[in-house]
């Protein structure tokens, strides 16, 4: 009988040697005359354990963490392929980090072979589409609206409402099919990797979600705009699209129905601003990624001037489970106006970083301490940045804030794409504030002055504060500058860069008033 061993193909797992582990297991098994099938699954999200090898046993899948290729012979001697040995972590699904999650969007990620459509179907894949095919576009949109799903790309706009606008957009004078579904896979926020993990670990879920969106609003063509920093995800998604097309799930007559829907994958080119939806559309059209004025909304006049749904990877990848299990099921998770689950990405200076999908409402503390286990360096934790480069730096005294769109806003922060980056007590928040301004200066699309010039000024002012020059006056100047950027920027890059800066000033003022150690030259 053949034994199945799972070694992730996820880019993070590969970045710490998963390929060598897979090769070594195959070679050792061959040398020993053992019959082993190696499945390259996605990551379970327990990224700190990678490479996490799983072996299928009668009881379930048994895990072995941090496996190094040179250890394979000894691990096999110790009974790894029967799920035995000292390094055994037990059943992967019982590891508390995993067991405590509510996996809806990521239910299949790490479980199945991402490029096996049969595996996908056997694990509930395309059940959502099957149900959607029996519904009208209006009914599908209603279902998504009632689920309470809000955009996971950062702005938290209700997905169903956006779809309703595109559904209702007039198409009378247009050629058939001239509406688009655009998936925002630019994942520009540092500290986030959920889109990447989903695409590499369960790409058909995204394809299915986009297909349902297309059927719901009457669009026949989709584009995935994927950042170029993700070559592995590009390969996996391109392959998955080809498989889905070959098996009749994309193209004319989707899954045997009267609907047409097809997909193309396009690469970004290293511009953070292209994650903003109108800049993204410009980029897809082959232009500079410069913000478009609104109105019109992309839902009315989007890609090539046609009605367009633009949604984040996670928003679209959550649609299949909503259709499969119903709006009420999804809606039953969460708190207040934040319904369902948020895939949290825990990163930086933390012992156990990874992807943690949780119902809204858990506190930051439960994530960074409970799941994360404190800092990787073992030093005291000092700050957590939530929501990417435009997110606030919170001190540890604010860790009881719940994970919820409204609660984050009330704490003068934002949830963004769900990233949390932990810093120990060696962090200098004045430098982090400077970085936020410098990043904005580098990534500004240049369209408006408060952002383009303001961020450059911001760097200079913070430099003077750090250097101890006229601190009071310069702190006032910085305050004016951030007020101007917040109020007068055309888009959220310039508009939100003040958030990390102000949170640093507010919660860590001591970092802006350090005594200057005089250097040799004055």
């Amino acid at each position, binding site marked *: 009988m053949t034994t199945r061993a799972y070694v992730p193909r996820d880019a993070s797992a590969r970045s710490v040697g998963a390929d060598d582990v897979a090769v070594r297991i195959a070679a050792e098994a061959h040398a020993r005359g053992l019959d082993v099938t190696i499945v390259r699954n996605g990551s379970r999200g327990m990224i700190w354990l990678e490479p996490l090898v799983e072996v299928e046993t009668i009881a379930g899948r048994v895990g072995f963490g941090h496996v190094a290729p040179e250890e394979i012979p000894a691990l096999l001697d110790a009974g790894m392929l029967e799920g035995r040995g000292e390094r055994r972590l037990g059943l992967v699904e019982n590891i508390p980090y995993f067991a405590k999650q509510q996996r809806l969007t990521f239910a299949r990620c790490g479980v199945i072979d991402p490029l096996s459509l049969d595996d996908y179907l056997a694990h509930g894949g395309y059940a959502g589409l099957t149900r959607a095919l029996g519904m009208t576009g209006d009914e599908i949109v209603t279902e998504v609206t009632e689920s309470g799903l809000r955009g996971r790309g950062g702005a938290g706009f209700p997905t169903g409402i956006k779809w309703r606008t595109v559904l209702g957009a007039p198409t009378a004078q247009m050629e058939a099919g001239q509406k688009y579904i655009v998936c925002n896979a630019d994942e520009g926020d540092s500290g986030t990797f959920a889109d990447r993990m989903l695409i590499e670990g369960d790409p058909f879920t995204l394809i299915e979600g986009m297909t349902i969106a297309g059927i719901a609003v009457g669009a026949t063509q989709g584009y995935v705009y994927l950042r170029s920093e993700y070559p592995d995800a*590009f390969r996996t998604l391109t392959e998955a699209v080809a498989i889905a097309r070959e098996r009749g799930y994309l193209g004319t007559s989707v899954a045997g129905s009267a609907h047409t829907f097809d997909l193309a994958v*396009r690469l970004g080119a290293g511009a953070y601003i292209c994650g903003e939806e109108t800049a993204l559309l410009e980029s897809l059209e082959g232009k500079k990624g410069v913000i478009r004025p609104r109105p019109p909304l992309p839902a009315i006049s989007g890609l090539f001037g046609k009605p367009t749904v633009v949604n984040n990877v996670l928003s679209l990848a959550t649609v299949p489970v909503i259709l499969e299990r119903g709006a009420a099921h999804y809606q039953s998770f969460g708190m207040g106006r934040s319904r369902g689950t948020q895939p949290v990405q825990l990163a*930086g200076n933390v012992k156990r970083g*990874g992807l943690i999908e949780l119902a809204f409402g858990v506190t930051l503390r439960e994530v960074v301490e409970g799941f994360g286990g404190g800092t990787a360096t073992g030093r005291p934790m000092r700050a957590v940045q939530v929501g990417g480069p435009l997110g606030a730096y919170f001190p540890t005294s604010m860790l009881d804030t719940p994970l919820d769109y409204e609660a984050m806003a009330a704490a003068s922060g934002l949830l963004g794409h769900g990233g949390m*980056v932990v810093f120990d007590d060696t962090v200098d928040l004045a430098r982090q504030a400077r970085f936020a301004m410098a*990043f904005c200066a580098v990534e500004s699309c240049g369209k408006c002055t408060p952002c383009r010039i303001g961020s450059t000024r911001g760097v200079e002012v913070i430099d003077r504060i750090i250097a101890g020059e006229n601190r009071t006056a310069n702190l006032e100047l910085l305050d004016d500058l951030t007020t101007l950027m917040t109020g007068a920027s055309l888009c959220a890059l310039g508009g939100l860069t003040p958030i990390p800066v102000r949170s640093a000033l507010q919660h860590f003022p001591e970092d802006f008033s350090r005594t200057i150690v005089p250097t040799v030259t004055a």
Partner: protein
Amino acid sequence: MTDTQASGWDVERARLTVDALARLPGALLPILHALQDEFGYVDDAAIPLITDALNLSRAEVIGVLHFYHDFRTTPSGRHTLQLCRAEACQSMGADALVQHVEERLGVAMGETTEDGAVTLRDVYCLGNCALSPAVMLDGRLHGRVTSERIDAILAAAVETTVEAPAGSPR
């Protein structure tokens, strides 16, 4: 998308590349990516090919070429090492890693070593933030990178791929 530098410019190959993609909606980025994958950079001589194929002005093409951080107009080294400078990697010592690499190779970020072996580039997040600090060498991701590991990774790459074939896959 990634950066194994390839062989010399060839106008006929470039024309084939441009023509193969010119019919795509919004073809400019796919064309620039394809040219860069093939030649390691986008040669100035490619611009007339693009303006002809897409019916764009030279200024439009150059504007796009310069807007995006990915595209380069001069050849880079045989290997490209991208070091993540974003927050999660900062929290795990990315700045010290950058300093180590700069000292080791004797060049600053954005520059190419004198022998043309390695180009250093900044990147803001590689999606490997749970295994910070992260780097990418010729499209291959590495996590939990220490000074010792980066030395080993660079040594292995420079040794094994002295002659990277033209347009070699990532």
